[in-house]
């Protein structure tokens, strides 16, 4: 076709393994591959065409073949055998000389060229001083990511270094996205050479979401398989499958056409969209503003009616919900964004998940989630549309999980969500009471946000607010939350923080600051 795809090589790399991973760290330094003469070895480069020189070399090769020092690795035949290329790996003392090959080329049976590397007089003592396990330990050093595991078998080889031949162990450690090969000197135990063996490329695939819509999937291709690992965003995004158990597995596809699990497609795409929202609107580089790797797991538990952010490893988990009532939780963009936002809170204000600080924690997750929805989806009521509700897309009977616009339309525990401070739930702080009603009372601040952005009348105080628009409101809310809130902030503290944020951006006497104050008053926070 017309366009040639040239995509920049990925920042990360892949390996084929299924295991639980702990907090990802950055990349280890990538050393050069085999291009040029990376090893600077003692072998001599040869090239001999027809004539005495080639004949002499060919005879030498035959002698070395019979001694076992040259072993045929591959024969390449062209034109029905008219032209034949023989590739020989080089051995000495029964061990392969790494990276060395001597090639002999024939035309109609006659040798017309010999090229490659000539290694002779390899005088190396092949009794190891270092044990294999010592060498393995040595090869592990410098690989900071704890998820590296020994890969493949350990081989004894001859390594041609600049200062001569070394008797070495060839050891590979791999994790998802990387396979580092290290040569450890079998005599001295030192690391002679190390390089990245894995090659990955990014690919864009197409996936079908749970509701049947089509989304683009940013994936990685390696070892003939596509992985739900996004390497094209500055923060790597991995979508895994808990398979209802305790281990999170990589999700793969053969042809980058992701049609078998819509929950994976939704989660993977929506987390990317959430990253984009925070980057484009708030210039934030991911959860920790340092592009930390993002991991989300789907099919958590069995009919698990929830989703959560795990602050120990910073991963996000999504259940499938009650199939009678719910779609799986990644079906809703605002739920994916809600959990991601918990990660941002965790990295900034650290709002304690109890009482009013907990309600603020929950509120800002709803606030950012709905703002993300308005950024990514078309306005309107319906699945995959943006409206002032939280979690509506997982409801089989379409309706809000919570409403920012009219909190009391949603019934809960014999009552409704409050739209005013006077209607707040006063509950003990324990697991049976939503930790003091962190979800229940979150609609007070999130309704404040609705009034500030959209405008309207509070149904309890009957106060009206002229909305300042979503793009201004989200800037004020983000700024207050990320810079001014602290772990034990309460609603009053949130009011002060948002007024400070509004003053920072628009000035203390501005319309925006005034609306911010009025909206808090409308929800009863003075």
């Amino acid at each position, binding site marked *: *076709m*017309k*366009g*040639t*795809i*040239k*995509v*920049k090589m990925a920042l990360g790399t892949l390996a084929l393994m299924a295991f639980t991973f702990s907090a990802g760290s950055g990349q280890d330094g990538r050393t050069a591959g085999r291009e040029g003469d990376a090893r600077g070895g003692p072998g001599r480069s040869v090239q001999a065409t027809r004539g005495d020189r080639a004949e002499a070399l060919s005879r030498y090769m035959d002698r070395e073949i019979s001694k076992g020092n040259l072993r045929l690795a591959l024969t390449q035949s062209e034109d029905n055998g008219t032209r034949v290329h023989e590739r020989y790996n080089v051995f000495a003392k029964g061990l392969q000389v790494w990276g060395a090959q001597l090639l002999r080329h024939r035309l109609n049976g006659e040798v017309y060229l010999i090229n490659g590397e000539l290694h002779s007089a390899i005088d190396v003592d092949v009794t190891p001083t270092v044990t294999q396990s010592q060498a393995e330990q040595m090869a592990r050093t410098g690989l900071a990511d704890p998820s590296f595991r020994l890969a493949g078998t350990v081989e004894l080889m001859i390594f041609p270094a600049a200062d001569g031949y070394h008797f070495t162990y060839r050891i590979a450690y791999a994790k998802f996205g990387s396979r580092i090969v290290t040569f450890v000197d079998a005599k001295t135990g030192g690391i002679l050479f190390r390089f990245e063996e894995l090659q990955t490329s990014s690919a*864009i*695939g*197409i996936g079908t979401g749970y509701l049947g819509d*089509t989304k*683009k999937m*940013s994936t990685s291709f390696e070892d003939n398989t596509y992985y739900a690992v996004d390497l*094209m*965003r*500055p923060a790597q995004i991995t979508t895994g499958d808990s398979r209802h158990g305790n281990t999170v597995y990589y999700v793969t596809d053969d042809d980058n056409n992701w049609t078998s699990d819509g929950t994976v497609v939704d989660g993977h795409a929506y987390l*990317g*969209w959430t990253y*984009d929202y925070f*980057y*484009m609107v708030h210039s934030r580089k991911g959860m920790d503003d340092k592009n930390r790797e993002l991991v989300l797991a789907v099919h958590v538990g069995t009919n698990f009616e929830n989703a959560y952010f795990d602050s120990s490893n910073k991963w996000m988990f999504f259940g499938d919900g009650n199939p009678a009532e719910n779609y799986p939780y990644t079906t809703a963009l605002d739920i994916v964004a809600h959990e991601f936002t918990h990660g941002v809170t965790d990295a900034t204000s650290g709002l304690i998940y109890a009482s009013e600080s907990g309600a603020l924690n929950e509120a800002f997750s709803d606030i950012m989630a709905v703002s993300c929805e308005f950024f990514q989806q078309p306005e309107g009521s319906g699945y995959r549309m943006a409206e002032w509700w939280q979690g509506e897309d997982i409801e089989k009977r379409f309706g809000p999980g919570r409403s920012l616009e009219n909190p009391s339309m949603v019934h809960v525990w014999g009552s409704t969500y409050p739209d005013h401070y006077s209607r707040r739930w006063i509950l003990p702080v324990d697991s049976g009471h939503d930790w003091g009603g962190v979800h229940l009372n979150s609609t007070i601040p999130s309704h404040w946000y609705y009034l500030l952005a959209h405008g309207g009348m509070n149904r309890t105080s009957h106060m009206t607010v002229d909305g300042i628009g979503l793009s201004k409101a989200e800037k004020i809310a983000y700024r207050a939350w990320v810079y001014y809130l602290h772990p034990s902030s309460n609603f009053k503290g949130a009011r002060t923080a948002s007024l400070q944020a509004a003053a920072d951006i628009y000035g203390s006497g501005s319309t925006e600051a005034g609306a911010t104050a009025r909206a808090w008053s409308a929800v009863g926070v003075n």
Partner: protein
Amino acid sequence: MTKTRTLHKYGILFGAILALAAFSFGADLRIEVTVRSANVRLNPALDSPVVGNAAMGLVLNAEKKTGEWYLVELPPDANGVAVRGYLHESVVREIPAEGKAPKAGMEPKPASARPAVKAAKPATGKKAPARVASARKKLYIRLGAGYATKSFDYDNSWSFPMYGESGSASEKYAVDASGVAFDVGVGFMITPALGVELSFTPASGKSKGTFEATFPHPFYFDLPREKSWTNNGLKYSASEISLDLVYAIPVTRRIGAYFCAGGTYFMGVKIESLKSVDWAEIGYPYFDLNVTPQYASYSASAFGFNAGGGLDYRLSGGMAVNLNARYSSGSAKLKIEGNKVTVPAGGLRATAGIKFAF
């Protein structure tokens, strides 16, 4: 056009017969002009138009005598044209052939007694039937240089798959092939009025391309990156070989006009066009990307037609100054990376140069 052609066909026939006749008649009737400038008329009548003049002392072989008039053929002029017509007996005297006495009534009368009739130019459109004279120059070579105007637009568009959607490219070209033109022709006049000419005209020019391309976004549907660029240095060339019928009309003794029309073979209409667009991502958030357009030359040949005309101003020695104008037209169907693109060829050109007649 056809009527005069038929006339000329008959003229050729008539001339051939007369030639034979003159040949068989031999030199029986020799006459000599006895006035300073005798009128040679189209028909044996005083009111008939004058088609030529005979100077005093000119000796002619009369083919026959009709009443008081001798039918003669004047010797061919500088252009090889031999005028035929009638001389009145009063302006000539017969020269007896060996041993023959002049016929009665043929005596020359004094010049002063004859009314001096001014030699009139032959009326345009009425010509003496020309006879193929062995001395007439039939072959010519024409060389000219001048100016050609040709400009046209063409466009092309195509799409390509990318990131699960389609990218698109649209190309608009403004080709300007105006400029210095050369024209070389070789012709053969079958009759003084009708001939064939083979000519060759190279043409080349510049093409200005304006391009727009859209590249789907890796993460989102319907959010393409748009790029546009221009390339003003693309090349265009086309050479023509034309085979024409030429119709010549003498205007004055020195000036001749001609029309020509025929078929044109545009050999290798060649244009430089967009071949492909290489792209590479610059990085997140992928609102922009690097684009490297690749260009290539595409060519095709075509048949068309041409029509034109010109003027020759005859100098001596078979040379003439030539002005030539021609319009040619054709369209070449090129295949550009699987797309069929039709590109016009030809144009209007005017050249001035030299014609050599042999």
